[in-house]
């Protein structure tokens, strides 16, 4: 067995009569970026919410950093959560706090024994890492979508997590900002040696950030491998549709807009 930080086997989750995950299995190796690619409503976000302990699975084995999430007590969960980070699709920044307070929040209330000076230094370091040190006294409402994503990533990194779970990191962003966020995700992996699961439906994001891709369709993984293995080797069925849709979106719509402006 390789050095797996996450192991999931035969995971099932339903909401009422809706079966969302129907026997999902996956492994995440240390320092690996795994992209989970899938349509909206395919259960991607549910999967990482189960991995972070926000939702309980109906059945199946889930091990994160050696902790069995089916048999974990509250104290162990608190310890585990300090070792994993979660970047929300909406960034989920605290509206009532400044950017610096947002980043300092986990250090102040989750990590014990840090002085105010240490918290300030670490906060400043994280703001520098995401290139937004000049925004520290602003409120979240004053930031753009891309800046909010960066602050979300900074807040996640501040506790030095071993695993980061990104939920649609490029959703709702313009193409240039998407590229910047993709670069930031790869930079985080190189600089902080983190492992990550990146949930997305954006093929560019998947290609730029993923060491390995897993395609989740209708609650099961249809295919797993490198980007080229999945999309450049004559895919069929839904995976082909997925690829074609993404390429249409990126190559055909853009020139139309250009012509209109012209």
């Amino acid at each position: 067995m390789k050095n797996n930080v996450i192991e999931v086997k035969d995971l099932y989750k339903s909401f009422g009569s809706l079966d969302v995950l129907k026997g999902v299995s996956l492994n995440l190796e240390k320092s690996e970026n795994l992209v989970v690619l899938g349509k909206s409503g395919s259960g991607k976000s549910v999967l990482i919410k189960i991995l972070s302990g926000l939702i309980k699975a109906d059945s199946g084995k889930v091990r994160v950093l050696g902790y069995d999430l089916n048999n974990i007590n509250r104290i162990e969960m608190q310890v585990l959560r300090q070792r994993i980070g979660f970047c929300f699709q909406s960034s989920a920044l605290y509206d009532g706090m400044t950017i610096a307070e947002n980043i300092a929040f986990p250090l102040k209330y989750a990590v014990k024994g840090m002085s105010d000076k240490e918290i300030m230094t670490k906060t400043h370091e994280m703001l520098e890492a995401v290139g937004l040190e000049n925004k520290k006294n602003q409120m979240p409402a004053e930031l753009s979508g891309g800046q909010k994503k960066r602050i979300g990533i900074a807040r996640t990194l501040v506790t030095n997590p071993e695993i980061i779970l990104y939920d649609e990191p490029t959703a709702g962003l313009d193409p240039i900002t998407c590229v910047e966020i993709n670069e930031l995700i790869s930079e985080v992996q190189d600089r902080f040696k983190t492992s990550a699961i990146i949930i997305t439906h954006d093929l560019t994001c998947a290609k730029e950030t993923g060491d390995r891709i897993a395609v989740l369709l209708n609650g099961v993984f249809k295919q797993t491998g490198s980007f080229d293995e999945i999309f450049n080797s004559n895919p069929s069925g839904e995976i082909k549709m997925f690829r074609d849709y993404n390429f249409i979106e990126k190559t055909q719509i853009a020139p139309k807009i250009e012509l209109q402006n012209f």
Partner: protein
Amino acid sequence: MPVKENNEVFISESIDRLLINFRLGLDFMFRFFGEFSFSNLIWSEFFNQCYQIGLKSLPLISLTGFVTGMVFTQQSRPSLQEFGATSWLPSLVAIAIVRALATLVTAIIAAGKVGSNIGAELGSMKVTEQIEAMEVSAVNPFNYLVITRVLASTISIPILSFYTAFVALSGSFINVYFNEETNLRAYLFAAFENINFLDMGSALIKAILFGFTIGMVGCYSGYNAEKGTLGVGKAANKSVVKSIFIIFLIEIFVVQVTNSFR
């Protein structure tokens, strides 16, 4: 095999929902008592909430209390004048204010101002995933958001109630001073002649229960807000309606118990 949720209806859908909500509300309250401890209390947030709930309500409470005292005195005068008993005005007004009006007026205003604010704030945090963000940061959101607010409300409302009583009696005194030319000393003597420890004690107990109710209902409604902005409005509305309903139930109960000791 995955375990599925049981959607069986027992009595009728609406009664089932009412009973389930009642049960969940009780669970929420028991969770408060289970998790509350002074050693884990986040004092900075607690003092912030005392400021928001207590100090920021002072202008509204002052105006309402003063007008209540003055108008109640004005409206009671004609009836007493018929029997030539206007000298009883201070005593009548003081009994009404200390036994019922001060705590009720404060609680109803606080339910509208504080309860709706807590419900909307926590509801908004819930639907924008800020509560989940706290949870995955290894910060206990219940401790940070609920315990601080409920405790601040439980402590602030009794203080505000006694302040309301003071302001209402001031309004009453001004009215009596200009109409009956009674001086302050005579007014106070007449007013407190018939006020005893039971009146003060029952008012204090009621105010504590009202404060606890406003905080608890506001937090419960916000914490369990449904998805979407509509859920935020509903949470704020539920906070006010349910709080006022429970406040009147408590008022009836405490009055019955107090009267049995007279």
